[in-house]
């Protein structure tokens, strides 16, 4: 009986939600799927992992959002989307992150949007730099990407 119980638990675990891990960026070969720039500033890099395991990398959060917009993809349509945390340089979930924008923040595409896994870190950065506007991922849908004068 015990044996069957273990098998059942394992089978249920197998049917659980698939997990997607971020891929390491290769500076030699990886280029942004939207703008073609090579990823030399890894601290701003992002990636989308499709449900079939394919993945695309991006040099800036603006390009990643552009890809989702072009393909009309929402969180549930893809495996996962990761972006580097501006504070810790770790991969974090794009959809749960906090965004801080200011035209003076430099990013590879000069969109001026930094990403934080922890809202408290974003607020601390905002306080320290004395500038910036906080957003959630949902707010980014109406954000006007491009040069901000």
């Amino acid at each position, binding site marked *: 009986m015990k044996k069957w119980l273990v098998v059942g638990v394992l089978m249920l675990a197998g049917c659980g939600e698939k997990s997607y891990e971020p891929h390491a960026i290769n*500076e030699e*070969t990886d280029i942004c799927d939207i*703008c*073609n*720039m090579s990823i030399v500033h890894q601290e701003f890099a992002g990636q989308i992992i499709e449900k079939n395991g394919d993945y695309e990398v991006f040099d800036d959060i603006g390009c990643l959002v552009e890809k989702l917009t072009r393909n009309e993809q929402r969180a549930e349509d893809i495996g996962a989307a990761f972006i580097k945390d501006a504070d810790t340089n770790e991969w974090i979930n794009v959809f749960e992150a906090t965004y801080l924008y200011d035209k003076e923040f430099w990013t590879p595409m*000069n969109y001026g949007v930094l990403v934080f896994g922890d809202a408290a870190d974003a607020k601390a950065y905002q306080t320290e730099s004395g500038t910036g506007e906080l957003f959630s991922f949902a707010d980014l849908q109406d954000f006007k990407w491009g040069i901000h004068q």
Partner: protein
Amino acid sequence: MKKLLFVAFFWFALAMPTEASTLQQQIDDAAPGATITVEGEHTGNFIITKPLTLLGEKGAVIHAEGSNPALTIEQTQDVVVRALAFTAKQRAVVVKDAEHIVIKDVRAKDMNIGIQVHRTKHVEIEGAIIEGPEGHYAKKGNGLALFESEDLKIHHNFITNVQDGLYIEEIKGIHVYDNTVSHSRYGTHFMHTDDGLIENNMFEHNVTGLMVMMVDGFEARHNGLRYHHALNGSGMLLYDVKNASISDNQLLENRVGLVMQTCEAIEVEGNYFEVNQTAIEATRIDDASIVRNNTFTGNILTARSDQKGLSLRANTYDDYEGIDVDEDGYGDTSYMAYSSFGQWMVRQPAYQYFVASPSVELLTKLDSQTKVEQQVLVDEKPRIMTQRRETLPRNYRQVIVGGMIVFLIGLLWKRSVRQ
């Protein structure tokens, strides 16, 4: 006596300025508009905040101390820096919040960034020689990094082994000419810089020769873009560019000669596309963009695009097999640049490794044999190729030496016949 000598030596040592304080002291003491001649080697982080000319004698070198720039020019105008060499861990020269700055004939080696300019008007950088350190471009800075400035002339510079030879961001009015950039990520990288003009430059052996992104108004003419063979390499790449003219450039031996993505109103005219794997790749291009009067020679694939295609008109193609019965200079049948395999490569770049394989050749031949009219990549009026352009430079030295050898052989032969 000994005591007196010791005191005298102590005061003498104290009064002797260090090298760094000497040059900075000279700068600080100089009247506005003065010229300071720099001799020998100096170590420090020198700052100019007044109109001044810094003129290097032969062998004059400024070494940056620590991670700060060797020379900073800030909040001033009318500064000339000429004939100086710099070494630095990070930045050799930084210019910020200034006007009318000339930097001429300077050298920087093994630094991270050669010359960096911020918020400055009327800048001329001429004749700089900038060589980055060995290593991957991802770990380096740019040769010239130019930000948020106005009216820049960048010319006759030689830059190698850096991330981007010229990184140009948010500049109003820039003329880039007669520069050479090699062995870097991008030869020149335009970002958010409208109405730039770039001409007579040579970009070779970079990942991409000329990268132009998010620009409205741009002109590139008479540039050489060659030997960009990397996996993602191209001679010139335009992304999100509007109202641009690309004319009379030579794009030679690149993975892709010209890449255009998400562009509007681009005129590609009078260029030579020679021996590229793919001459032109276009995706998301508007109907106002056109490729005309260009010459395509020795490319494996002439053009590839998405379903929207690209307007081709009156270009010359070396693989055009039509004839010109009415002798108007144009072929009597259309040229089809369309290739099934080329279209697949747009979607799967890794397919490039099968280019020129027997199966791909067969597929391309089948494409040309099938009379299915394609809606994309068709040139209705291709020019007939009349003569090939001479691309090899004449080596007059070899011609003279060769002529002399022939003459000598002739002379010897004549003598031997007489005997």
